[in-house]
């Protein structure tokens, strides 16, 4: 079984539960394979949790935990805490939800900045420092964070530096009416997620990540990625442009996308298909542009249209 088939299995399994979102599902899985984390900005009820659950259930041996972020959530609630055990008369460490393979951080912008940064450190460094002791989070560690794009009251929007930690930002959006009626039909007897059986193993995912690093990336396309990201630094509507981390992410995600396409190399089409999701959330627009009603996603889309692409 080669990598394309493994990836295909995983994609089919997840798509059978999350209907009508094949594009976004592939992107989320590519993000998983590329070793990054994803931020889903979506309305309630569009299937964020289902997506996360479906991924974890499809992978044999993958641990799934969910943390609902609230303003009173403390860093220790995420990382874990040592509690004095009177029987053994010593402190025992109770690991938090961060010690898992797939973590759904629901409504991440409702937690206090302190808690947010505790999570984000773990995401960036793949390690957690708790009471002076370092815990490594090696192997598979995939955070699916969500935030609600409409309700901002009582929230702490993620700072720009922390948005950069997310490889991609996507939104599921509402599905079409046909797909929605299919969802209803599928859930008449029970949730299809309950019948979902693991199709690949945790080690397969780690193998996919390794394989994606071997996807060939031509020098010409490397230049294209760099010039696309550099174009954000010259755009007058952008106050804070994309960092080299964005170029890196764009390369990694498009390599992972190539696996799902069944290719050994990256094409410019693949880069363009994920560029908006990889770059846009890292940008901060200038005040005039923001008030003029333009969005970062629009600007990146415009840049994709203007930066010359290798033919």
């Amino acid at each position, binding site marked *: 079984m080669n990598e394309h088939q493994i990836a295909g299995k995983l994609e089919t399994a997840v798509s059978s539960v999350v209907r009508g979102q094949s594009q976004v599902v592939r992107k989320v899985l590519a993000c998983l394979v590329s070793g990054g984390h994803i931020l889903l900005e979506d309305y309630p009820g569009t299937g964020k949790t289902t997506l996360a659950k479906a991924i974890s259930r499809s992978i044999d041996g993958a641990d799934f935990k969910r943390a609902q972020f609230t303003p009173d959530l403390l860093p220790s609630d995420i990382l874990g805490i040592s509690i004095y055990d009177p029987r053994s008369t010593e402190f025992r460490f109770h690991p938090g939800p961060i010690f898992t393979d797939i973590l759904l951080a629901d409504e991440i912008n409702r937690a206090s900045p302190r808690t947010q940064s505790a999570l984000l450190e773990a995401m960036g460094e793949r390690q957690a420092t708790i009471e002076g002791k370092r815990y490594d989070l090696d192997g598979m560690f995939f955070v699916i964070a969500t935030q609600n794009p409409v309700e901002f009251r009582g929230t702490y929007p993620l700072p720009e530096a922390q948005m950069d930690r997310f490889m991609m930002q996507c939104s599921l959006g509402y599905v079409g009416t046909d797909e929605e009626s299919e969802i209803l039909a599928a859930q008449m007897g029970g949730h299809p997620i309950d019948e979902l059986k693991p199709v690949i193993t945790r080690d397969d995912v780690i193998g996919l990540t390794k394989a994606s690093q071997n996807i*060939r990336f031509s020098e010409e396309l490397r230049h294209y990625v760099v010039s696309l990201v550099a174009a954000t630094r010259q755009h007058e509507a952008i106050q804070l442009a994309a960092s080299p981390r964005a170029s890196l992410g764009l390369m990694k995600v498009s390599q992972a996308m190539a696996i799902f396409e069944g290719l050994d190399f990256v*094409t410019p089409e693949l880069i363009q298909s994920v560029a908006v999701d990889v770059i846009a959330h890292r940008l901060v627009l200038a005040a005039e542009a923001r008030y003029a009603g333009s969005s970062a996603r629009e600007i990146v889309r415009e840049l994709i249209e203007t930066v*010359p692409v*290798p*033919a």
Partner: protein
Amino acid sequence: MTGRPLVGLLCALFVEGRHWVRLRWDFNDSSYESAWQLSFILTILAAVVIWLDESRYTAVLVMIGWLPPILMPLQFVQSYGMRDSVQLTAFSLLARRNRLRSERLGLIHQSAAFNFGNVTFLVTLLSSAVAMTAESQLFLAGLVILTGWMLLANGRCRWQSLIPVLLIAGGLSLAGQHGLQRLEKWVRRGGGGHDDRFNPNFQSTQIGQRGQILQSPEVMWRLSTTNGQSPPRLLLTSTFSNFLGLSWQNQHFPFAEVKSSYVGAERYYVLDEKIATESIARQPVFNLRGSVEKTFAMPLPGSAVGISGLGDAEVERNVLATVLIKPQASVVDAGIRWYSNEVIEGEVRPADLTSITPLDREVIREVSAELGLDELPDLKAKLARLKQWYDQQFRYTLDLTIRQPSGISRLGELKAPSALRQFLTEVRAGHCEYFATSATLILRASGVPSRYAVGFGVIEKSSNQNEYLIRGTHAHAWVRVWDEVNQTWLDFDPTPSDWMRGSVTRMGWTQQMKDAIKRLREDFFLWRTDPDNEFVVVMVVSVFGLGLGLVVVRRLWRSRCRVEAKTKFAAYGGLREDTPLSQLESIARKCIGSRPAGMTYGTWLLGVQTEIGQLEELREAIALHQQWRFDPGPMEESMQHRLRELVAKLERELIEALRERRKSGSG
């Protein structure tokens, strides 16, 4: 192309220099406003200077020619500023007020901004097309070359398809230029009136027309005498020998240059060559001062002997006493020496009636016989009788009541008597052209050589001492009569003397103001161009201009800043390999248009599927192309072969599809 290549080149360098120079200024709104104010002040100054220098017909054209450099401050602010457009609020005080109010109240104010380059381009185009010395051939060639260059540079055209485009551009510019020239002519004529430039060989009269004679009350000349000498009564611009129905004409008598010589520093144009220049300079003098066209006929008394004060103008005259002058400036102040009994006009002494119609000839002979002019002994008596006859029997009027018969009756007779017959026998009222024409012909019938003369009567004394005003209403026609005994030409004015009363009417205050402005303008012009004052003028203007320039340059220099060159999105400089599929681009472009820069080749090429319908093969070819292009690893020989096959097939299909489309298009 407007006769000032240096200024044009400087302007062009100025506009285009922004691409080579990294010097920029961070102009704010008030800089745009001051640039506009500077342009505005320059416009006003230029308008004043041009109004002072040029005749009223050419001023507009000269102004258009100078517009591009005048608008340079605004173009500068846009070209070398950080923004690439000019706010509309810079031009309007009202819009500026509105903006300030919005700022004060914290409202969002959206002001329209536009690219001033378009305005500059239009103005330049206009000025190169219509300005005074615009050269149409150069303009046309330049336009075609520029259009071709633009199209080639954009890469939209090949050589073959360029030719029709250039033809269209050439045709359009020709048509546009024709229109502009028509406009120019219209402007020259002063807005739709007829072209009344002086023609020394043709003078149309209003004999036989109906209506009212309208003459301009503008002051054309100011005549000033010295020491209270009386001025000549009549100033002649031209004389004519042949009356042809309705107009006076001459055979084309050639013009010869008038000789000149210097007395002291003053150049005298000698009209009477028998008199030494020194003695001409001692003759009585009067001055004529006025605004003139590029070529004009000088009104002179019949006994003028020399002209001074023209500088180095070109002066010519013909045998009929017409003196044509091409002056160097638009205002002249000529000193005219006169008062001699010498004959300075040529040998043309027409005394026959051959040029007029038999009917007119008949009535002229009748009148001449009735007056008994032939029997009178000398010229003086003949003229006296004629003058007496006109004075007693005729009435002067500006109403045109006599009409030329418009048709011939069935019996071959004119429906009505000719205009001259009506004037002489029935109506006995008319204006100077009737009197002068009939008197000229009657005198010729009685054997006295005579010519029809046109010019001005000197009849209005101005409020200034020793100054007379000559207006358009003082235009007059009379007779030049040959005095055989004294061998000289005499002025004979047959018109009853009450014509002067009609011509000298009280002017309204608007006319008086116009006269005063004209007087000021001409006097200032003469003062300014006087060599004695020139130094002062140059000093004042250059000190003022230099001061202003220094202030602007100093402020600009202090606020300058440099910008880094705007780096283009770095193009890939490394090795790139084209595949067989890349060759399809030029054919596919004809189907689906050029590929946008940001669209991948595969996505773009998929657009042709509606033309050929080979979707599977197209997809396969694109996939192979991508592998060839973007997979750094080696590609199997068989796959390369497969791609070549596919491309060959697709190319055939595409060409076929194109042919079909062309057929259906033409069908």
